[in-house]
């Protein structure tokens, strides 16, 4: 029984919401989203690493990335190629815009039907929304089982895959038959860095739009290097019901967004000096907060 796998990793380009520095704050104390750097969603990198480990272990295995977003999201595919992936597809179309998790899953599932992998591996959740919904929803759309919160794919014998899951208060080891959707938890190993050989190989990889922007000479240069052409797929390429994509395919609507404004409240400023700390502890003991 063959153990070579065709793997698709779902990856998302996200604004780095983890470290909102002063530069990303507007004067009114709210976040300037445009000022945040765009990064490879952290748990999707954990997912990529699991895929690359399978590729290391099972000869003939291929790893492709699938991402949905605007043109600049092609950076995610290039980053994946630099780290060891074999290719990728950018889903980009104005008709995908405004998608909630359900419409996103629909578009991804349509693309996956075309790619026909044996296994889909994704991060548990993306840091801009933290919903953890897309993995399970893609699995449902494909009619495949799901294994969420994976920490390690321990074995694969050509039929069954054994996966260790990280739960809130424990661990669980499961076995599942393919096809399968796996979502990977942050506690899984970090992704390997870029590989010099891959970096050289894929440095000039561009999407169709990017190639057009670069001009006819660039296009000619890629004549014998089709692996440097990153496919861009729109609604017409993946097929399906138009109303299920983007805003029209999204049952949830945003009624209101409130920016968080950090409001100062009266606080006592103290230092690490002995007197300050001693005074604080005495005060807390006197009002029975402690003791």
């Amino acid at each position, binding site marked *: 029984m063959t153990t070579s796998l065709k793997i698709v990793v779902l990856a998302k380009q996200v604004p780095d919401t983890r470290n909102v520095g002063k530069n990303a704050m507007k004067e009114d104390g709210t976040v300037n989203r445009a000022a945040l750097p765009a990064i490879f969603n952290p748990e999707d990198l954990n997912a990529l690493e699991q895929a690359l480990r399978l590729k290391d272990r099972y000869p003939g295995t291929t790893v492709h990335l699938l991402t949905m977003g605007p043109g600049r999201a092609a950076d995610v595919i290039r980053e994946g190629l630099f780290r060891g992936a074999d290719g990728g597809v950018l889903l980009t179309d104005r008709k995908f815009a405004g998608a909630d998790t359900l419409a996103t899953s629909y578009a991804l599932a349509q693309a996956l039907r075309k790619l026909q992998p044996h296994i889909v591996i994704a991060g548990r959740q993306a840091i801009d929304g933290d919903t953890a919904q*897309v993995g399970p929803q893609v699995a449902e759309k494909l009619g495949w089982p799901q294994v*969420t*919160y994976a920490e390690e794919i321990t074995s694969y014998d050509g039929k069954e895959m054994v996966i260790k899951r990280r*739960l809130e208060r424990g661990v669980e080891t499961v076995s599942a038959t393919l096809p399968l959707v796996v979502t990977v938890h942050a506690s899984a190993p970090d992704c390997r860095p870029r590989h010099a050989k891959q970096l050289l190989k894929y440095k000039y990889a561009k999407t169709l739009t990017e190639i057009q922007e670069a001009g006819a000479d660039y296009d000619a240069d890629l004549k014998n290097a089709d692996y440097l052409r990153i496919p861009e797929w729109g609604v017409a390429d993946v097929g399906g019901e138009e109303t299920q994509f983007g805003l029209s395919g999204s049952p*949830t609507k945003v*009624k209101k967004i409130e*920016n968080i404004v*950090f409001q100062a409240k009266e606080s006592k400023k103290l230092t690490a000096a002995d007197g300050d700390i001693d005074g604080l502890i005495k005060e807390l003991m006197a009002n029975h907060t402690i*003791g």
Partner: protein
Amino acid sequence: MNNILVYCEIENGRVADVSLELLTKGRGLAAQLGCKVEALAVGSKLSDVEKELMRYGAHIVHVADDERLDPFRTLPHAAIITGVIKTEQPQIVLFGATSVGRDLAPRVSSALKSGLTADCTSLEIGNHTDAKGNSYTNLLYQIRPAFGGNIIATIINPDHRPQMATVREGVMKKEPLPAPVQGDVKKVEVKKYLQDADFAVRIIERHIEDRKIDIKGASIVVAGGYGVGSKENFKQLFDLAAVLGAEVGASRAAVDAGFADNARQVGQTGVTVRPKLYIACGISGQIQHTAGMDQSAIVISINTDANAPINQLADYAIVGDMNEVIPKMMKSYRENSR
């Protein structure tokens, strides 16, 4: 009548706290909507489970009892919930945002082509008029932080039913009724909903730790963030906690960095705490975190950065190194408590 349905999670034969919290919240929402609360328990050996669920306000308890339904596996549970929702047509369905609920609810929402909002911090009933002038009454406002906690979004599902949401444990209060509801038990015909393919995932081994860590119930919480720097430094928080009779909490950044266990995480994607004293060490104070502790009676922050956002929430902002401050606090406490 389109009621409110709560998926009740069963752990070790008991109903999870988060499910009882959701029933409590569901009662309030149902009163506003003029409907009732229904509970759905899926598991094995569930005799008498309705007693507790009715004590928290369930008028109808759907029980899906089959030995194949315990321990939890996604597909069979999803098939049963989807089936019950299609039959009962609830207007709202609530899940706990636990390992189970966050795995299950999106699968169910996709099967129903219905919207789902994750990790809500507040649920309200309200009206809506869209840009085209269509007006909707009595929608569920699903309120949650997003974008790393830098915004608070109110999400609605105007045109799709049910309206589905997950809520973290501890966000809603759990309150039993003085007298249980005299409700009905409806046995779910499990076999009708399950197929062999639903058992494609097999559990080989399972280690679930008992709930030893109880930061939710602690009256004092000593919490550490990424600024604590290492797992070794976190030991100082345990030392201080031992002296004060406190429990140790952590920010998401600290948990992600491996300084502390998942079960200690305070915040939107962790536990919500309301202690009488919260000591935040090396925590910058992103909304993601403060959403889970801003109802603490007194907040002390210890941070080397005088401009850390947490200081704006703190009653006492100590600008300094926790490696210096914590030993001094312990020393002072010991001396003064003699």
